[in-house]
């Protein structure tokens, strides 16, 4: 819980400092290098204990495929239901949800396919999904089952949210999160492309 609070404060501090232009210009690629450093550390953690990579695969086998499937179907079903009550059309609502937290890609794709407004909603929606997940990982793990943080993370379960997922759920879930992240990641352009055929 303490971690979630500090994470929220760090994010708010960043937004405040840059929107008030206290930190004027900065290079957007810094975030990417920080992410790389983080993934390197996660890798070292796995390398020290390689059984954490192989034992869940042996234990769960084909069941692992159901995890990304649940994430994708769950999001599409929830968005379809929500479309009944919101001003957007069914296709747009589902397409926005199908960013699965991959905000850079989904915003660019939908900007081109559905216009600037939908692109903006997709950007904010998927950015929010990433933040919601980062803030609620401990809560989700405690009350909604150990797969819940991975499902909430969507496409980000392979990058930004992975370190926190492994801290909270334990090493056993790292390989599930990576597999989940790869599949959901690839499904983003695929699903959005299919919706706008």
């Amino acid at each position: 819980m303490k971690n979630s609070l500090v994470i929220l404060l760090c994010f708010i501090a960043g937004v405040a400092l840059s929107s008030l232009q206290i930190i004027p210009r900065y290079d957007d690629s810094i975030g990417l290098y920080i992410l790389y450093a983080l993934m390197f550390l996660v890798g070292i953690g796995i390398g020290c204990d390689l059984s954490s990579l192989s034992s869940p695969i042996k234990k769960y086998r084909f069941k692992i495929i159901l995890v990304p499937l649940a994430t994708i179907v769950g999001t599409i079903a929830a968005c379809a239901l929500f479309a009944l009550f919101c001003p957007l059309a069914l296709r747009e609502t589902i397409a926005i949800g199908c960013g699965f937290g991959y905000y850079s890609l989904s915003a660019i794709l939908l900007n081109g396919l559905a216009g600037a407004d939908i692109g903006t909603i997709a950007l904010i929606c998927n950015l929010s999904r990433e933040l919601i997940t980062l803030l609620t990982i401990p809560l989700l793990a405690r009350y909604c089952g150990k797969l819940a943080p991975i499902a909430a993370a969507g496409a980000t379960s392979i990058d930004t949210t992975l370190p926190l997922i492994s801290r909270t759920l334990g090493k056993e879930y790292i390989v599930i999160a990576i597999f989940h992240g790869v599949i959901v990641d690839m499904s983003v352009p695929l699903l959005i492309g299919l919706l706008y055929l």
Partner: protein
Amino acid sequence: MFCVLLIMLSGILIGYFLRHFRIIPLITSKVSIYIIYLLLFVMGLSVGNNPQVIHHFGGLGALGITIAVVSTAGSVALSWVVYRYLFKPHK
């Protein structure tokens, strides 16, 4: 994504060679939380710098946040079913 995987793989390799030093996993988990904080701070910086996000915090933004909550809830609900029936250790 592939770049991230490649970097993680190189970490795994180095971690494997260093696996006899029991202090390494303790250090990496201690350091990683501070890097997560830094990452969120930088994410905040780029959101604050992004006029598309800042200017639309009202109408479009609220709709976006609602869809985020709804879709996350949908995924979490289904994942709970999968966890409950297929993953949870039986007593």
